[in-house]
């Protein structure tokens, strides 16, 4: 016993030690993970974000360096009161703020850098860099921000912002503090613009200091710069459109019919993209976000849903012709209103001799298109079938659904179906007929479209029956293709030959119709005015507001180069604002200069602010006045 006790103890304790090591090293794997977290840090190299150009190669968006004042609290000496005062003045913050930031930095880590004041400009940097050496522990760090070379098109570009937690969870590529495109082209082409981050694995010591590359850098990767992209928009048009919409609310959207390229996409009111860069960013963003009256962040072209009004008659006519329930010769008598047996007859603003389809388009005769619409529906045994057939035609123009353009999806609009009306009228308990939906004929009633959808059907008309999906990407640097959905032709359900009478009618609108005073010398424009009734709710009561001024057009008649849709909210009749703006935009694009300076002056000087103030005033007001 005496001889073997110690031997026995040694063996037992040896087994205990070995078991403990086995547990730590083999059985429990948690330490492997902690050791990685402990000792290996990933450092990212951020690639340069791609530039954005317009269709003519004009640089719109690039990058600018921004300068953050950083501090490593451990290295910072306490400042004398005079020094501190001077430094705070330099940093443009108060002393309390300065103390707070320093305290926060210390709390985060005394050895790691923290931002004291972010995003100084180049000019401020020049001044700061001369003085910063005096303050030990403080230094300036460069970052890249977006630089905008234009003050328009904020709705097209979108913006970039720091990723939030939900993005990080969904996409492991992003880390806290990374920037991501949040809307517009920046969001749509995020992957192309951003490039790929480079990673450096670094060996850290216990103070979290870098002591060298991990494994001699065999896992490291280099950053890949983002690719530059060229957009289809024309910066000149964008700028001009923005000018025309000053003091108005609405949108302008122009496409190139032959390609579906978006030439202009303007919403008003908008904001200067520079507002969302730099130190004032969050303040400015909050201001824009909470402006619920003029809604500058709301893209009226993509998100705005409006009753299209009279331009929709072109489609009613096309469907009528295709369905064969009317021909180009037949005239419809108009007594100044169309009585369909409802409570209130559908009024018509003109009273002239009976018109055939061309004249009906040019003069925008309600009675004519109500008749055509009714016949199109009633051609079928039940209104349900008629309705769905009608909807089918319209869908072929890209209406009633998301359009698939390379911008934020916006809104679907609405082309009502039989199901829609069945629910509405509680079918089969109550029946409904074509007459109940008669307002659709003239683009009122249940039909709503976004301006982008309006311009898309205008393109289909200009092309006599087909279109490419609207898109904003013209070229991605280093590749010669754009996404294939934008090179696929979409055909409408309407035969090519039926487009000519409609186009003739649109041309006649300028020569002898609703747009006759909008003529532009030397350009054959086909257009259609629209005056769309609209309502709002004030204190829960449905109140009618002044009509929206709407206009669609394309030019020239043959081999069209531009198609456009314009809406000016509460602008009253179609040719008043939207028609003028459409004409000016077309002239600007095709000629590069304005000859109708009278029209230009009218638009530039005009303001609708009074009109917009009416429903907010709380007092009774008159509309269409």
């Amino acid at each position, binding site marked *: 016993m*005496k001889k073997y*006790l110690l031997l026995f103890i040694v063996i037992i304790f040896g087994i205990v030690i070995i078991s403990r090591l086995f547990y730590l090293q*083999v059985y429990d794997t948690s*330490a492997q993970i902690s050791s990685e977290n402990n*000792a290996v840090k990933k450092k990212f190299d951020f690639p340069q974000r791609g530039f954005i150009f317009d269709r003519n190669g004009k640089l719109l968006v690039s990058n600018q360096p921004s300068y953050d004042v950083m501090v490593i609290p451990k290295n910072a000496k306490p400042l004398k009161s005079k020094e501190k005062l001077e430094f705070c003045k330099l940093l443009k913050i108060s002393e309390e703020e300065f103390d707070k930031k320093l305290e926060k930095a210390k709390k985060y880590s005394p050895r790691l850098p923290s931002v004291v004041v972010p995003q100084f400009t180049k000019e401020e940097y020049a001044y700061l860099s001369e003085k910063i050496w005096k303050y030990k522990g403080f230094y300036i760090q460069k970052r890249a921000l977006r630089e905008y070379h234009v003050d328009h098109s904020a709705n097209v570009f979108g913006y970039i912002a720091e990723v939030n937690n939900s993005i990080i969870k969904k996409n492991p590529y992003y880390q806290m503090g990374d920037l991501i495109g949040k809307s517009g082209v920046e969001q749509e082409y995020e992957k192309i613009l951003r490039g790929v981050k480079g990673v450096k694995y670094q060996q850290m010591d216990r103070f979290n200091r870098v002591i060298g590359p991990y494994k001699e850098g065999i896992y490291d990767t280099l950053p890949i710069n983002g690719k530059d992209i060229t957009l289809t928009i024309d910066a000149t048009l964008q700028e001009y459109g923005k000018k025309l919409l000053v003091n108005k609310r609405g949108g302008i959207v122009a496409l190139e019919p032959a390609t579906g390229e978006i030439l202009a996409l303007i919403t008003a009111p908008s904001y200067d993209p520079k507002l969302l860069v730099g130190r004032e960013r969050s303040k400015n963003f909050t201001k824009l976000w909470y402006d619920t009256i003029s809604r500058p962040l709301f893209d009226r072209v993509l998100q705005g849903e409006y009753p299209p009004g009279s331009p929709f008659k072109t489609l009613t006519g096309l469907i009528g012709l295709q369905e064969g329930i009317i021909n180009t010769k037949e005239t419809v008598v108009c007594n100044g209103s169309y009585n369909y047996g409802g409570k209130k007859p559908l009024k018509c603003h003109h009273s002239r001799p009976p018109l055939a389809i061309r004249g009906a388009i040019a003069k925008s005769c309600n009675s004519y298109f109500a008749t055509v619409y009714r016949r199109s529906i009633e051609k079928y045994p039940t209104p349900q079938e008629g309705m769905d057939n009608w909807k089918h035609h319209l869908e072929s123009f890209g209406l009633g659904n998301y359009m698939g353009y390379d911008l934020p999806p916006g809104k679907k609009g609405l082309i009502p179906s039989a199901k829609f009306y069945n629910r509405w009228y509680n079918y089969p308990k109550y029946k409904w007929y074509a007459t109940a939906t008669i307002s659709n004929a003239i683009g009122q009633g249940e039909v709503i479209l976004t301006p982008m959808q309006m311009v898309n059907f205008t393109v289909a008309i200009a092309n006599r029956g087909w279109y490419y999906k609207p898109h904003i990407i013209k070229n991605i640097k280093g590749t010669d293709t754009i996404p294939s959905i934008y090179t696929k032709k979409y055909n409408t359900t309407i035969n090519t030959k039926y487009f000519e009478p409609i186009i003739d009618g649109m041309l006649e609108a300028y020569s002898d119709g609703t747009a006759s005073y909008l003529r532009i010398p030397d350009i054959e424009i086909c257009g259609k005015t629209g005056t769309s009734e609209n309502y709002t709710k004030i204190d829960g009561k449905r109140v009618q507001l002044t009509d929206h001024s709407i206009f669609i057009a394309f030019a020239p008649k043959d081999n069209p180069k531009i198609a456009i849709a314009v809406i000016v909210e509460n602008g009253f009749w179609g040719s008043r604002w939207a028609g003028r703006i459409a004409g000016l935009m077309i002239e600007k694009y095709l000629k590069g200069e304005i000859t109708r300076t009278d029209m230009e002056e009218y638009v530039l000087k005009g303001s609708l602010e009074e009109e917009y103030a009416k429903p907010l005033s709380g007092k009774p007001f008159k509309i269409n006045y």
Partner: protein
Amino acid sequence: MARARRLKFDWITIIIYLALVSIGWINIYSASYNETSAGFFDFSQTYFKQLIWIGLSLVLITFILALEAKFYERFSSVIYLVSLLSLLGLFVLGKNVNGATSWYFFGGFSIQPSEFAKAATALALAKFVSDIQTDLKEFKDQIKALILIFLPALIIIPQPDPGSALVYVALIFPLYREGLHYIYLLLGFIVAALFVTTLAIGVPWVTVGILIIAIFFYLKNKKRKPNIFKYGIIAAACIGFSVSVNFIFENVLEQRHRDRFNIVLGKEVDTKDIGYNTNQSEIAIGSGGWTGKGWLQGTQTKGKFVPEQDTDYIFSTVGEEWGFLGSLVVVLLFLFLIIRLLILAERQKSQFSRVYGYSVASIIFFHFFINIGMVSGLLPTIGIPLPFFSYGGSGLWGFTILLFIFIRLDASNYVNR
């Protein structure tokens, strides 16, 4: 010279020693390695200094082995006294390093006398026990032996260096081997067990446990009509001890001491302050996996996350870079060395050699178990080096002297036969 040729050194022990020193140095190299050093022959580098110490150890070994075995027996008292004086001298001339006044400085060198005192005490103990007049069954001699052992410990404690002092407890084992009643060991074991369990599960549960054990033994021995009072008194004493441990722990010990125990007992998960060492060391060892990250590839080692990594915590580098298999090799080398020493001790003809051999085995075992236990988080943080491994000239020399005196004694034992 003719006699010297007949000396038969135990090569197994020597080879294990050389293996441990070499492996130790490889790990010190890794732990102190940094890419900025001027080259291999850099005197400011820890690994190079250690290499010099190792080289000098070989000279020292030759010297130790060249001396007569009788020298150690004869001069053991003198050596012991010199050793005590050198420990006492620290209070006057010692330099404070990391809060402990355990060092003499000579020019660029520093000497830690407590590392040498172990060998001296072992020699003195062997001399005393092997004295024909000593009888460990007698209380008087028991006290004398205990004084001999704990005198250096008492001087070392207030330096303060409780770790080095604790090692002297190991010398109870040779006494037990030479006839000390087992009750002392048992008492020691019970005290330790009660101490740990009280802190781990609290006085009430310990009381319940003691009562159950007492009743169990009472019922088991019922046929022999045991004295119920005896059981009652022992149980009461145990409970009383448990209560007093609790009292001391809560009211006498300082918070930092409490923290150390609580971390090991898993009561406080604290990875920042006091628990930092243990936590980082466990992470380093644990991250080694089966085969480790490879020499000079340990991320924890490179980042110097484990404090005292080249000294007390050198084993964490072994664990990280060589994995479980490497750790196993080191642990087995130590176990073989200790067992080999015990076998050698048992076959000694002279009692002096046997007691000394036992002392050497016990001291190395204590160091080994406490150090690796601490590094792997089994035991509280007790600053004590890993023999032959940890960086430090005094430590290496202290253990080399301790071990090779025994190898010398063992070698001459054959001669006498």
